[in-house]
């Protein structure tokens, strides 16, 4: 059975491909260094058009109107520019009702694109541009420590990591938030108070990394101006110890919090990126592998959720669990809390 994987890497080389949803313009060059919030490309989205009927405006048939169109596809026009008709006093004319660009001419109909919203593509990770796809986007490379999350509120931010408390199950409460945290990315076990999220926005902090967040805070978290990611999901679940230890080792270091949504089609997940010096850099490890004895795994669901341990044995499909289900499983030994039996479906590899 191929294992699902979450990455907690103390040092790796990441490549991130950033692509526009439609064709547009790339704003950076090969070799450029970029910050996470830099714009690397832009495209016109949410376009607005006007259909202008030259025949109707000129009071003639479409066949007669077409030769009187004075602008070509692609031309930029200003409000009042003559689009069709004859020049001269008394001649009927069709003028552009707004600034725009002629994008199509079909018979006597002129399609004018009057405005659009630019869609900006951010780098979302700091690093170096190593590849340009003209009109589409870029690939960015960075050497970093890396922690993948499982839920993000879509935000993006850079700041200095600050660990709250000393344990992965630290309950983040309002009394732990203060003005000294301005500009930092807080790391804590879990949060179940709306006031905490709102207070953190007032400080303001630059981001929040949690083991979990209670579901009732889901809408509140989504509208916060700073990025929030959870590593374990929802509830009052502590952060897994491997991720906590790594983040704690980088207490005080600058990090980027990319709280993008999980995208099953391209594998995007929210992530914490901590740039490190380029020594002993390595590629991300092999991720496609079956469950084996000795692997470090995290419990994804059920009893012991978020605990990390080592597989000490594999169990057959006839193994019965307290829910009554039968499924293949594994015996997992936890560093200080004994051994547990878990369905393989509830485990993932931590690498």
């Amino acid at each position, binding site marked *: *059975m*191929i294992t*699902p*994987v979450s990455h907690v890497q103390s040092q790796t080389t990441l490549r991130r491909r950033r692509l526009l*949803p*439609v*064709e547009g313009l790339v704003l950076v060059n090969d070799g450029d260094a970029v910050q996470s919030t830099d714009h690397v490309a832009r495209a016109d*989205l*949410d*376009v*607005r*058009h*006007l*259909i202008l009927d030259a025949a109707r405006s000129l009071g003639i048939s479409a066949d007669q109107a077409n030769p009187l169109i004075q602008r070509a596809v692609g031309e930029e026009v200003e409000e009042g520019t003559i689009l069709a008709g004859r020049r001269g006093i008394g001649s009927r004319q069709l003028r552009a009702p707004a600034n725009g660009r002629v*994008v*199509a001419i*079909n018979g006597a*109909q002129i*399609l004018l*694109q009057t405005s659009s919203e630019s869609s900006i593509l951010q780098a979302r990770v700091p690093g170096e541009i190593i590849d340009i796809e003209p009109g589409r986007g870029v690939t960015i490379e960075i050497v970093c420590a890396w922690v993948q999350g*499982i*839920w993000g509120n879509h935000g993006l931010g850079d700041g200095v990591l600050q660990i709250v408390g000393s344990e992965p199950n630290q309950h983040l409460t309002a009394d732990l938030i203060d003005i000294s945290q301005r500009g930092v990315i807080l790391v804590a076990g879990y949060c179940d108070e709306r006031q905490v999220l709102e207070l953190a926005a007032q400080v303001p902090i630059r981001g929040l990394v949690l083991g979990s967040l*209670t*579901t*009732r805070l*889901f809408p509140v978290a989504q509208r916060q101006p700073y990025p929030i990611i959870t590593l374990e*999901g*929802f*509830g009052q679940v502590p952060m897994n110890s491997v991720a906590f230890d790594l983040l704690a080792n980088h207490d005080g270091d600058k990090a980027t919090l990319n709280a993008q949504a*999980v995208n*099953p*089609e*391209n*594998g995007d*997940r929210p992530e914490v990126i901590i740039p490190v010096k380029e020594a002993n850099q390595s590629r991300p490890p092999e*991720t*496609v592998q079956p469950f084996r004895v000795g692997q470090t795994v995290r419990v*994804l*669901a*059920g*009893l012991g959720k978020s605990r990390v341990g080592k597989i000490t044995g594999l169990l057959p499909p006839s193994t019965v*669990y*307290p*829910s*009554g*289900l*039968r*499924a293949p499983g594994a015996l997992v030994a936890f560093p200080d809390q004994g051994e547990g039996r*878990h*369905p393989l*479906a*509830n485990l993932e590899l931590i690498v």
Partner: protein
Amino acid sequence: MTTPDKVESLSLISIDVGSVNTRAHFFDNVEGRYRFLATGAAPSTLGAPVFDLNLGVLEALEQLQEFTGRTFLTDSGLLISRDNGEGAGANAISVTFAGALPLKVMTVGLLDEISLDSANMLVRSSYFRVVDSLGLNDRRPPEAIIDAICNTLPDLVVMAGGTNEGASRSVIRLANYLALALNLIPEKQRPQVLFVGNEKLHDEIDNVLGALTMLHLSPNIRPYLEQESFGPARQALNAIYFDLQSRKMNGLLELRELSEGQIYPAAYALGRVVRFLSTVIDTPKGMLGIDIGGLHTTVASAFAGELQLRVFPELGVGAGLPGMIAETHLPQIMRWLPYDLPEDLVLDYLYNKPLFAGTLPSTPEEMAIEQAAARQVMRLAIENSLSLFPPNAIYPMPGALPWFDRILVSGSAVARAPRMEQSLLMILDAIQPVGIATVILDQNNLVNAVGATAEIDPVMAVHVLESNSFINLGTVISPVGNMRGRGNPLLRVQIVHEGEKEDVVEIREGTIKSIPLPPGRVVDIYVDPLQNVNIGLGRGRGGWVRRVAGGVFGLIIDARGRPIQVPSSLNRRQETLNSWQQELITG
């Protein structure tokens, strides 16, 4: 069903790629009849970290090989050949798939209630999400319509309109709007167009749209005002769906090659089985099939060979749970829980599940939450399918389901319940059938395989459906009508087996009762309503019901009324839910 007793059958592998699991089923000839022999299963590998569904397929096949002791895989690949004899490989293979996110579609038609309605019905029979609809009555100016097409960037536009003797100018006008919009979209991102309107306009539509994008012309889905015809259009839609998905799902093209084109969307395969059942079972009632998946849920019904098929994209019990949560109040879930669980714990579970869609419930409480969620997913799908059922079906009362003869339920959430009474209660609580219906559980998740393989050998579908691979849970009698109140006598039922009368059983309102009747046994029953309720014989009328087939739970009298009411107070709720379950256990 009457089928040939013995056939020169093939050995078949059927692969089903779902959002969570990929399964490889093996069917072979045993004493002249097709039999389902084994299934290998593995997690699906469409997404991260693999991004190639064939790895999951290989794993499932390896497991199948292990279970059967038969060699399917060699260094040269999968052994599929008509020449393969007993003991190695298989003679044919079919594939179904449903694991991907739905595609975006825009529908275009003339009148909202006619051609646009038909176009929407067509696309909802597969894994598409309608992002916009455009009709003649659309009040948006043409510019706004063009903007909408450019901004939503659908994968496909389905255009209907005009009977074959009907409108043409309006259809061409809409096609011109579409052409203008297509001109504005970069060529690589232009949606394909499926035209299913007035067939006399094929040339003109080709002139307007053919040079701009990949245009598919299919027979009219509304050739006459009063007639809809979806068959050829569904096939065209399936082909387009495959084409579009194969660009996103690595490995799909290889599976098509391997299966020599016997590859279908899973919903299509379910529809084929349900339609088939309605043609071979002689009844004025309909057939109902529901497949509850991790990401999508499908409802298929058929009356006298006419299929109605509806896919609910992103409504499921895994990654599709947010679709249910968005349309559900928490008490609708909590009412099915026989445990005293805090609302926050239930919410946390429901929000975590889509993040880790492949995970399994590990405690009885988690199992109860998942089963409650599955009930609600099926309930939403059924409620939203009411408009799908044809008006000429027989309904006991307005707003109720029509009479169904058989109800076939597939999907791991139901089939994998640790106890079979849990499966039955999930089905009855969610679907709330009326009258007399036989409930069949697809315990081995075979229905898609049967539907897909029917193209290779239709006899196989019959043999497997007749075998015990599908579990007959029992015949359910569900009276409907105005009832007096919980505890009042509702029905008297007497079983007569080969002329021998058995004890009369009286059933009280608000209860569910299982009367033992083993699988394979067929009896007549006499039903006597004690209130003004209808079991399909007319309001307040009783009588003989002939040839009632037994099942795992025998004859089940569901006297809980419609809709089923669950007490709101925790103690009474626990007591009621436990009593319903206990009744099925003890019979």
